[in-house]
């Protein structure tokens, strides 16, 4: 085997040296023409992105959890349209691998369709799949195009593509190294049949999404060829190289204004697949020097025997989610923007596991990295004129639920329910609250499906969708709240349900500058209540999360971890209460405007309990409005109490440094407290 080493992967992320020909083409791109050329690439990619969403079948594909990209002939990412920034910087690893290993056999030719979903070779996890096409102009390889998206079935040991019970990569279904699946612009029928076989649980989604990727990559290829024909090879070649140069310059300029220094963040999670245990799922040390960043993950917990591991380039992809959304938001999605950033991964950590590791839940393993980058960058950046871009961490819960079975239309299906993951709360911003139900931290432009669409596509009833009170972290600026949806099996005898998460015992994101993070997310279902019958009866009242938790409609709440292995749920029974986490809070809650607290209570975004006990707001019992005078006095009392009860550093450490979590919850952690590898991990 010749899968790329960590060093080769990191090297492939760097922009290739320009050839003499490329340098000579730079002069062909004059100011004005350059800007028009850049916009043209964006227009081509946006068209591709639209084609992609309209051609996809799975909920994630329709939601826009995808990216469409173009590369120069060497495989450097020049520009992309997203979707999700998750795949923004890593496809060059795959293209450069193809160029290095397969140029002679099987050869790279016009009309090829290449494909991979194997994270060992440069992807995120095997549900994330990419179709890649070389672009030949007048017989010469001049560029590459790619279309990447998440498909929710891979033929793994559980439905949905992200099996929580997988122990090694051999439990994860289809893992295709980079391979040619079509030639002469035709997708091979035997390959389609292979996809159908691996996707037996959801053949339509798998094969339609496969074709959607190929169609999209080809559309971008065709448009690029039109551009080459119209503008000339010298111009497009020079344009691509200048875009890389300018993107790198833009990134370096941005970093240069931050104060040099070292910024750190430690985050934690509570499970690896079905095994519970405390993990330091990220220990990030970010060193900023001049116009460069060095990001070191040393101190992150060891790899584990579940699917909650992530290969290093997958971790970098997760950092791109935040970096393109908040830091390089005005720069092209390009290999060059990451040129000033270097990475260090400790071997055998959960962020750099062995080749045989299961990584299909890499998105869970990387939540700590996603949260830590927001925290470290926020601390480095607040001192600058860019302070308004500083935010507390997004929710980064990724509480994903999968349904499978045979739909009310008689079609086998396995799909991820896109609503919950696409309605997480945004982290509180340095100047305002986070947006409620802002979206999917993995896919800034993803769209939550309409309930009617969900009920039409899947055999389920969705009696309510609502903001979830107190799910956003408290603070001077509140984290955006997440949502709750009730899901009931409908129209079919049963469905298979499973879900993925790691935030039922502890939450991963750290808050920022004195705020609090969000509450944990239990996995909830109900027994002994017939929801369809309740709806048919039409009694007065409001069916919502609070009324169900309070037992207003009877039944018994069953509380587990949010991550649950596959199980059947019979007709008209509650599948689960799908909840999406809110965003982390920013600043001291005592600094929050009392009127904003009152409005939050009125709008159902926080509870009266939080208003009183966390925000220290007093209300006039007669009017229900804020009592400003009483609130001010109460807050002065709390400030004084803090000064009285707080301990100095030395006093605090007398007791604190002798403590430790219970030994039985440190099974996944590594050595205490530095999280180093203790024992080698054996996988079958």
């Amino acid at each position, binding site marked *: 085997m010749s899968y790329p080493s960590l060093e080769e992967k990191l090297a492939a992320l760097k922009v290739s040296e320009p050839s003499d020909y490329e340098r000579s083409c730079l002069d062909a791109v004059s100011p004005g023409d350059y800007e028009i050329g850049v916009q043209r690439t964006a227009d081509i990619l946006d068209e591709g992105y639209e084609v992609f969403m309209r051609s996809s079948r799975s909920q994630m594909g329709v939601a826009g959890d995808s990216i469409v990209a173009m590369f120069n002939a060497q495989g450097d990412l020049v520009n992309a349209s997203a979707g999700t920034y998750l795949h923004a910087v890593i496809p060059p690893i795959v293209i450069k691998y193809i160029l290095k290993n397969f140029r002679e056999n099987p050869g790279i030719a016009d009309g090829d369709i290449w494909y991979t979903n194997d994270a060992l070779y440069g992807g995120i996890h095997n549900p994330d799949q990419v179709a890649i096409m070389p672009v030949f102009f007048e017989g010469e390889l001049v560029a590459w195009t790619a279309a990447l998206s998440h498909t929710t079935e891979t033929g793994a040991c559980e439905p949905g593509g992200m099996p929580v019970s997988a122990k090694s990569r051999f439990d994860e279904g289809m893992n295709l190294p980079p391979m040619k699946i079509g030639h002469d612009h035709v997708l091979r029928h035997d390959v389609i049949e292979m996809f159908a076989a691996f996707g037996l649980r959801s053949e339509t989604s798998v094969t339609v999404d496969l074709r959607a990727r190929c169609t999209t990559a080809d559309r971008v290829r065709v448009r690029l060829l039109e551009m080459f024909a119209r503008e000339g090879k010298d111009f497009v070649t020079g344009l691509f190289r200048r875009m890389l140069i300018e993107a790198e310059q833009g990134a370096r300029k941005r970093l240069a204004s931050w104060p040099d220094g070292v910024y750190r963040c430690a985050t934690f999670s509570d499970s690896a697949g079905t095994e519970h245990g405390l993990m330091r799922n990220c220990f990030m040390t970010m060193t900023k020097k001049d116009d460069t960043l060095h990001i070191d993950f040393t101190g992150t917990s060891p790899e584990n025997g579940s699917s909650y591991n992530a290969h290093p380039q997958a971790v970098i992809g997760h950092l791109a989610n935040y970096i393109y959304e908040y830091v390089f938001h005005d720069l092209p999605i390009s290999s060059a923007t990451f040129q000033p950033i270097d990475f260090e991964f400790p071997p055998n950590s959960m962020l750099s596991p062995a080749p045989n590791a299961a990584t299909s839940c890499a998105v869970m393993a990387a939540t700590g990295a996603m949260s830590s980058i927001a925290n470290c960058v926020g601390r480095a950046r607040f001192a600058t004129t860019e302070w308004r871009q500083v935010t507390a961490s997004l929710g980064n819960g990724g509480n994903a639920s999968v349904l499978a079975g045979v739909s009310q239309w008689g079609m086998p299906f396995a799909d991820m329910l896109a609503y919950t993951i696409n309605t997480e709360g945004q982290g509180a911003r340095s100047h305002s609250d986070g947006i409620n139900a802002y979206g999917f931290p993995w896919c800034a432009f993803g769209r939550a499906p309409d309930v009617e669409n969900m009920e039409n596509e899947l055999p389920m009833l969705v009696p309510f969708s609502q903001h979830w009170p107190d799910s956003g972290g408290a603070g001077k600026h509140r984290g955006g709240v997440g949502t709750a949806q009730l899901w009931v099996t409908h129209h079919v005898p049963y469905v298979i349900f499973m879900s993925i998460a790691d935030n039922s015992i502890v939450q991963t994101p750290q808050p920022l500058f004195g705020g609090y993070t969000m509450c944990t997310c239990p996995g909830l279902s109900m027994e002994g209540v017939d929801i369809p019958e309740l709806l048919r009866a039409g009694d007065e009242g409001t069916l919502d999360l609070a009324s169900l938790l309070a037992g207003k409609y009877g039944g018994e709440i069953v509380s587990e*971890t949010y991550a649950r292995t596959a199980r059947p749920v019979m007709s008209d029974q509650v599948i689960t209460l799908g909840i999406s986490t809110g965003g982390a809070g920013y600043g001291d809650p005592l600094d929050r405007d009392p009127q904003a607290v009152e409005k939050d209570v009125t709008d159902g975004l926080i509870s009266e309990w939080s208003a009183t006990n966390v925000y220290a707001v007093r209300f006039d019992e007669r009017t229900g409005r804020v009592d400003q005078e009483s609130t001010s006095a109460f807050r002065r009392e709390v400030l004084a109490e803090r000064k009285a009860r707080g301990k*100095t550093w030395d006093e605090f450490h007398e007791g604190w440094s002798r403590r430790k979590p219970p030994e039985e919850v440190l099974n996944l952690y590594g050595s205490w407290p530095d999280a180093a590898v203790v024992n080698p991990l054996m996988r079958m």
Partner: protein
Amino acid sequence: MPNTIHVAEYLDLDVDSERWHCHSCGHDVGDARDNYKKGLLIYERDPSEVHPPLIDGEFTFAPNPEWIRILEFYCPGCGRQVETEYLPPGHPITHDTEIDLDSLKRKLASGQLRINEHGKLEVAK
């Protein structure tokens, strides 16, 4: 105008004296070459005091207090909650911000960086 940078919501850095100060009340929080948290008061909370359990059982919407605690860092001068950190009991407190003062002073002196009227760093034009 003092050579002061507003480095965090509740933290200023006096570049000349190399001291951290509370942004709200000006209290001297300590040596800027050291962890600013050493100059703050620390209080440990059971997370359920901020995230109350909403249901019975093991998984309640509240973090498990045996696994994780909330550390609150207060300004000794005004009581402002400068920082919070969710840590397992006994876990070392994170030294989250370690500004390279020598580099900062060098860049300010050379004119590469300047501090604007709002106490924010910007690259000199």
